[in-house]
């Protein structure tokens, strides 16, 4: 079993603009209201990078920055490692590159090519924050959140250091929407710390994570989301993080079960 502590959370999805605003919604104290996700680049980026950076990076950096700001000041000084989990890249960048390559004389934009790597958000993030620890960018298709959580938790437990987990996928544009119909933007970030770290005021909850036998669980979306939005939400693999965040909004010994490639990643959430 891996045990890690959650110090702070970032969140951006339709109708969910950050952790402060989202908590009463996830606790069903106030009704959910759909609202478009703002696509502005986070202020943490310098103007040059803000101009160049793409939708995947804007979304990932926004939630990562929220989590870091909400954490204790010591968190930044402690230089967390970073894990960025994302099933897919930025369909617009890929479509633009494919279009360039289909010309008689292919002419790929150098900035677009540099932006096409899966670790573009991690690159922009380290430039913006000056954080020099390792950044691991991964995909496990629909199970990318579970894979990212396991990767981040093993980093925290094994390296005995903080790790900022960011999970995000942006909505797809035509023509790639036909192939991967992700219909909304969704990103979440969790700043995770080891058991050994001194107790900080920011500490929100403890996660005990166990990888085990598959337990076929019905995919019920958290009850706070009105039925008419469920299909759009579940089109984005990053919304798997919302089950955990819903439990974190009211930590009372709940267990969240995440599908992970035929196994189950069980996460017990307890108050601390």
């Amino acid at each position, binding site marked *: 079993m*891996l045990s890690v502590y959650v110090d702070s959370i970032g969140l951006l999805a339709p109708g969910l603009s950050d952790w402060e605003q989202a908590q009463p919604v996830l606790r069903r104290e106030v009704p959910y209201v759909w609202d478009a996700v703002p696509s502005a680049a986070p202020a943490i980026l310098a103007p040059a990078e803000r101009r160049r950076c793409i939708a995947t990076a804007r979304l990932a950096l926004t939630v990562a920055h929220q989590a870091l700001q909400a954490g204790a000041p010591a968190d930044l000084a402690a230089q967390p490692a*970073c894990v960025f989990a994302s*099933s*897919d890249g930025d369909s617009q960048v*890929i479509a633009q*590159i*494919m*279009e360039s*390559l*289909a010309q008689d004389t*292919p*002419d*790929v934009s*150098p900035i677009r*090519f*540099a*932006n*096409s*790597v*899966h*670790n*573009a958000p*991690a*690159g*922009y993030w*380290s*430039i913006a*924050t*000056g*954080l*020099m*620890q*390792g*950044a*691991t*960018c*991964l*995909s*496990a*298709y629909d199970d*990318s959140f579970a*894979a*990212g959580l*396991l*990767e981040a938790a*093993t*980093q925290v*437990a*094994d*390296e005995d250091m903080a790790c900022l987990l960011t999970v995000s996928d942006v909505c797809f544009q035509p*023509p*790639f929407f*036909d*192939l*991967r119909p992700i219909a909304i933007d969704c990103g979440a970030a969790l700043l995770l710390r080891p058991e050994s770290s001194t107790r900080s005021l920011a500490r929100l909850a403890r996660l005990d994570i166990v*990888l085990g036998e598959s337990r076929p669980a019905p995919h019920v979306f958290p009850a706070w989301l009105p039925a008419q939005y469920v299909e759009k939400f579940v089109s984005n693999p990053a919304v798997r993080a919302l089950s955990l965040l819903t439990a974190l909004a009211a930590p009372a010994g709940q267990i969240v079960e995440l599908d*992970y*490639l*035929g*196994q189950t990643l069980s996460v017990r959430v307890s108050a601390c």
Partner: protein
Amino acid sequence: MSAPIFMTAFTATSALGAGLDATLEALQSGRSGLRANDFAAAPVDTWIGRVDGIEQESLPDELADYTCRNNQLAHLGLRQDGFLEAVEQARQRYGAQRVGVLLGTSTSGIFETEMAFRVYRAQGAWPDSLHYREQHNLFSLSDFVRRRLGLAGPSHVISTACSSSAKVFASAARLLRQNLCDAVLVGGVDTLALTTLYGFSALELVSARPCRPWDAARNGISIGEAAGFALLERRESDIRLAGYGESSDAYHMSTPHPQGRGAAQAMRAALRRAQLAPEQIDYINLHGTGTPSNDAAEDKAVLEVFGNALPCSSTKGATGHTLGAAGIMEAVISALCLRHGVIPGAGNTEQIDPQLQADFVRASRPAPLRHVLSNSFGFGGNNCSLLFAREGAC
């Protein structure tokens, strides 16, 4: 590292040939596998490290949807050096759920998407031959390999450009030490595609000649393709993963920090984890891509950590820069160098840049090696250094 982790089996297929024998022979003889670009779909004026036989490789019927250049090379690579049998033994020894699969790739099956997009433009619809999840998505590679080998342990694809398949060693070591796996299949595959050939061209980073790392006249990379795999276990073998270090440059998206700041941090972290002093390292397999800025930055980082007396070289003049597969390709080369006592040279390099001060080796030579460091640095300033040790007498 507390619980030692060993490479109990490994293999590599690149422009040097399929499997370890061809690879070792090339390292010892100084043979390069580069050729003038004959990848018809992307007639860029450059040299490439192309693998023969990929197009003829067929996947098992039940995995036909996974057919793409990248997974075909993965399949070709898996069939070398008895690697399939070694994985099967691990599966039987530990159980499928205790064997993880962590692989690196930068572009997965994008070549098939490039071709399909032309159909889309002409016909307004994607061709039936395109299977996005099984070909294009990054996880396609690990998904294909775990299905092909019947493995069910933790799995993902790491995609951090040219450090991808080095970083899988670090993640695998953590899974093993945290007892989430008893064995992890690590590795990586990247294949020729228009995106990378034209993309690196647009950045003016490809050479019109075979790449010449550390040469005074070096002017870019030669893009290559490769598949490499290793099985990591706690069970002893002659090659041990002694350490690893990961870092970020925090500098620029496509240019390394000019002083090699992140690179030095990664190398130091690998030494620290291995509890070794710089003097105990016998050879560095450099990232050594052959671009002016990459080699200059890495030279500064090596000098800062090791001084100028440690033999080092780049094998990218032999294999080409295999991008997301470079980490595993050079991990396997490092293991071969340790096992067979050879420091590989860099045959294309003619005149070493007098501005660079590391002890760069041009001609292959025998040497007893105990500890070898392998560097992999990628776009976005993503760095990983791996440190391998030979067990027993040299």
